[in-house]
């Protein structure tokens, strides 16, 4: 791999990971390329089991790639894992806080693991407790905290040594909506402060709300990547209208060839229309059904969003 330009925080080429198990090989990641620039807020979006966490695992050195290579902050994740670990912070999906230590000590010892003197580590711990509003939980046990508090402490812990790249694996999974929105605010502040962030999520709206650039991942591959606007503006950036009838789909006439309609898919008693211009389309489909003697049992219309992008790319509805 050639030396990447200096402002590249992460470069991955053709990463593969196959888990071997007695029941056979499970390909989790099947050829992922990534480039993340410094200061960027990058999102890996995909349904559960798409290979996002495995990808993050490889970038954070704890999952060994089956093939391919990756450099983080200029260091090879396989050959120089300690150098990589010195420069990254990671917030796992699980609560991996040290149960034998208080909230304060969790921060204090993280600082010391990263080479701070005992005094500097304590000062830094105070600073971060303050910053993440956890001062009143200072002596608390990490497992007696609410999900939001534990997550804030984990983010604080990941930032103790001022990492160049912050990784977050599904940071808001399992949190209530209010806590999620509050965490988003924290992450936006971090980005504003110049922090490079890589986040995985299976929530479309999370990727839309936070990320500069998004890679849509499914079955261990990147289906598309770009800014949210680019993705929406690409082939999939359309309104998707899905209509189900109580009988076979009526003859749609010249619908397929009409301007503003890019694709029509039929499956069973259901028709799905990918359109740039969807005004009046639903009424038309209802009318077509009525004249053919079938009525509409279900209809849904998706505005241009990452969800329609996903639907266009995979032909499947997005399952969270």
């Amino acid at each position: 791999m050639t030396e990447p330009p200096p402002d590249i925080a992460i470069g991955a080429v053709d990463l593969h990971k196959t888990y071997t198990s007695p029941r056979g090989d499970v390909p989790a990641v099947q050829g992922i390329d990534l480039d993340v620039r410094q200061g960027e807020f990058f999102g890996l979006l995909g349904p559960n089991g798409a290979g996002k966490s495995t990808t993050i695992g490889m970038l954070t050195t704890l999952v060994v790639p089956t093939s391919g290579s990756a450099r983080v902050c200029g260091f090879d994740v396989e050959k120089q894992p300690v150098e990589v670990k010195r420069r990254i912070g990671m917030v796992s999906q699980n609560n991996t806080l040290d149960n034998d230590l208080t909230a304060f000590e969790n921060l204090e010892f993280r600082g010391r693991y990263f080479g701070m003197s005992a005094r500097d580590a304590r000062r830094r711990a105070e600073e971060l407790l303050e910053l993440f509003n956890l001062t009143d939980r200072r002596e608390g046990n990490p497992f007696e905290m609410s999900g939001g508090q534990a997550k804030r402490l984990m983010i604080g812990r990941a930032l103790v040594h001022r990492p160049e790249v912050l990784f977050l694996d599904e940071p808001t999974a399992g949190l209530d909506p209010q806590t999620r929105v509050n965490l988003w605010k924290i992450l936006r502040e971090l980005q504003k402060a110049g922090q490079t962030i890589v986040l995985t999520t299976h929530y479309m709206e999370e990727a839309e709300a936070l990320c500069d650039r998004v890679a849509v991942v499914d079955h261990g591959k990147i289906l598309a990547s770009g800014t949210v606007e680019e993705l929406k503006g690409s082939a999939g950036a359309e309104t998707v209208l899905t209509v189900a009838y109580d009988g076979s789909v009526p003859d749609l006439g010249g619908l397929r060839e009409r301007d503003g309609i890019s694709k029509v898919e039929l499956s069973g008693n259901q028709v799905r229309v990918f359109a740039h211009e969807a005004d009046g389309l639903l009424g038309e489909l209802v009318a077509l059904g009525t004249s053919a003697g079938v009525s509409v049992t279900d209809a849904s219309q998706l505005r241009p969003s990452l969800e329609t992008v996903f639907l266009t790319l995979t032909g499947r509805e997005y399952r969270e």
Partner: protein
Amino acid sequence: MTTKTAQGKTAQGKTVQAETLTAPPAVRPTIPRTFMAMMAREVRVMRKNFLSTFVRVLAQPLMFVFVFAYVLPKIGGGMAGQGGATFATILVPGLVGSSIMMQAMMAAIFPLMMELTWQRSITDRALAPLPIPLLAIQKIVAAALQGLIGGLLVFPAVLFIHADGQAPEVHVANWPIFLVVMITGALLAASGGLLLGTVINPQKAQVLFAVVLMPITMLGCVYYPWSALDNVRWLQIASLFNPLVYLSEGLRAALTPDVGHMPTWAFLLPLIGGTIALTWFATRTFTKRVLT
């Protein structure tokens, strides 16, 4: 709800200052510093749990010497050792050795079982800037330290609790052997514990007690010297697979040389060789479990 307001404040009231978060790190970590910081963490946790550790470590040997070195001699059921040595004399090295063995093994096994499964919190330590095999070594050293503390705590109890005339005759006859045996015994137990902790399913932890820890302590030449097994030859040979035998016998050689014990080479070789082999093997299995 207090949480909600607290979080609101973080996000709105207080903004995250740029320099707090992204100023370049003041220190470059080095591997020895990271290693020592992890040891400092273990010491902090030990200090916090000192009272419970103290009670846990002492309860069993205390009861044992009380019954065997005090109650039984009082009621005339005392056992005599070889060559006129009191039973207390035989028990001191055995109980210290078994305490080291048990405490070091358990200190390695149980936290590890938790860390590798529930929430997989091993990730926390694995992300510290240390090669994973060194993390395994750190866990072995920390567990060995707890084993040594366990052994030292038992000393006063077994030295001073006994009936009149049943005092153990114990003195450190050979300091180098004493120290080498204590330290390698603790390391051997800790590396064995790390190995078990990485390969055994936590749901079978109960079985571990029954089939590993119990036989090790009961048949570890704790309550009799190995040479006394001459009459039960098969057990004498089977006992050679028990690591605690070498620790007990080594401590006998160092503390109660008048009681029959194995020759020096016969316990030092397995203690040192076993420590090296088990550390190597445990480090490998640990690394395989942590790096997927």
